[in-house]
């Protein structure tokens, strides 16, 4: 990792401390990292090492206790609530481990949700959503509600949604954690393919070492610190 390279994601001295009554938990204890555009970054580490916290901070879902985050030229540590909302909407795609989708909406409507947040009409957003569903191989399931989709299919819909606004970064927190190994592999291959074909930047926290095969960078975390970073 070279400091001279400005990169897409630029993080310095990142700390996040949770206070639970009297007890103070240091989830992140000073993380520095730089990620270039188009990277496929895998973050590994034991449970509780701070992976989720890091992703939340990068995605503007949570605010750091200390440190700087700059993504696509935008410093987000001091951003207002409205700026953070816009930042999440325009720059970030987020994929959680499970329960990513709104159960009342079908797959297509779930995919175009970020476009609707931007103020697009349903009509204008629909073709874009269809195209994204095609990218993840689910064009035939557009009208299905999440309850009618398998776990793997739901994750594909979530991936399509994360990519629909052409975000600067897709952040995925254990996206295969809830899937069986065969399905997990398909989802991994899908993300790696989208990274290659669309040039989308991914940062993925995982226990699944399979993902490392595709990684351009692997960060290993332990106890709130980045302990090893290797280039794939």
């Amino acid at each position, binding site marked *: 990792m070279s400091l001279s390279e400005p990169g897409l994601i630029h993080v310095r001295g990142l700390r996040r401390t949770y206070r639970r009554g009297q007890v103070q938990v240091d989830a992140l204890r000073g993380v520095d990292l730089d990620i270039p555009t188009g990277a496929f970054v895998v973050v590994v580490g034991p449970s509780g090492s701070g992976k989720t916290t890091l992703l939340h901070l990068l995605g503007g*879902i*949570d605010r750091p206790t200390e440190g700087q985050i700059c993504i696509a030229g935008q410093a987000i540590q001091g951003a207002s609530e*409205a700026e953070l909302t816009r930042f*999440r909407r325009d720059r970030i795609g987020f994929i959680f481990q499970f329960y990513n989708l*709104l159960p009342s909406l079908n797959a297509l409507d779930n995919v175009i949700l970020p476009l609707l947040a931007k103020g697009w009409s349903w009509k204008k*957003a629909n073709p874009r959503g269809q195209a994204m569903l095609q990218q993840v191989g689910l064009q035939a399931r557009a009208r299905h509600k999440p309850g009618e989709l398998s776990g793997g299919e739901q994750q594909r819909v979530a991936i399509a949604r994360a990519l629909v606004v052409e975000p600067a970064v897709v952040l995925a927190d254990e996206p295969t954690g809830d899937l069986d190994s065969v399905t997990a592999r398909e989802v991994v291959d899908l993300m790696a393919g989208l990274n290659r074909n669309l040039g989308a930047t991914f940062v993925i926290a995982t226990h699944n070492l399979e993902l490392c095969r595709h990684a351009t960078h692997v960060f290993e975390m332990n106890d709130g610190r980045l302990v090893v970073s290797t280039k794939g």
Partner: protein
Amino acid sequence: MIAFLGYLFKDLRHDWGRSLLTVASLSIMVISYLLTAALADAFDEFGSRPGVVSHNLVMLAADTIDPMQGSVSQEAFDLAVAAVQAQFGPQSVRRAEPTIFRTLRIQGDTMEVFAVAPVGMTEIYNLALLAGRLPTGRAEIAASQEAVSLAGWQVGQEVEFYGQFFQLVGEVRYEAGKIASLWMTYDAGMALFGERRGFQVGALNISGELDPETVRAYLESVPGIRPAYAVYLEHDVHARYGQAIQDLLKFTIVMDILALSVITFGVFNATSLTLTERSREIALLRVAGFSGSTVRRFLFGRALVQTLAAYLLGWGLARLVTWKHAASSFSMHGMHVQIILSPQVVLPGLVLTSLCAWLAVWLTTHHLGQRNLVVLLNE
């Protein structure tokens, strides 16, 4: 905006069972609100004073609640006339007539029956003839326009009450008491009701130069009048019932406030439930880039649609109640009371319930913007 509404309805449809339950329970309070408001509205006119101030004093037995239960003795009435003349001059009493008074249920409607000499009808009670003529014979009556419209009579037809047939010879307007009233001569009244209970009202028309309240107060102080008799201004007698009802109607305001509170509470409850049950969904919307205020607007839209649906349903059911139920149209103390859901009842209610929904959603969600997204995600 279209997308916003589209999502709103997709969401409500998905959750239709719960939505329906919310709508149904809210609509019950809407019915309660509407019927109470309609009741208050129906009685709004009741007992309001007429525009004209008459110079009539009426003397009634003091020890009865209902004037028809008592009677005025001829001696006391003569004493009253003499006392006023002695105090305010011989010209002060323009006319004095004994009047028989009954409240009767005639063909299902409550009406007030006055029996007074024909000269009293015009000179004291100031009846204005609208059609036909005033009664003169024993078997003739005139009816006020309220009575005519209440019973659906035609001038010239026969009317039976108290075991006797009368011919309706005229329609009149009785300005001081806008009530359903029947008028017959004093002799006809005596023949019909019997001599034993005499007359119930001593009516005095006093000179226009005198202040009726001053004369009334004086009369009540005359020994022999007090304490057996009470003297009222003519229109106050009619307003007396109205006042009691107006006092009672103050409770309808309380009832309406209660109904609106329950609606507010119901929306509050439904929205809190949505908020806790679906915090993950709300967090997902926020992560996808919807602002806190958009989410709040969405929740308000949801509540508003439910409230409006409940209002519509409640309105329909309340209409059914007032339409089906005979009690929604009745007469009381000679006044026709009809409970109808007029626009001035329904529209303010609509605005008020919408405001209640807004208040409830505001109360449940005003802190939503400050909620930590991570906490919301994991709830």
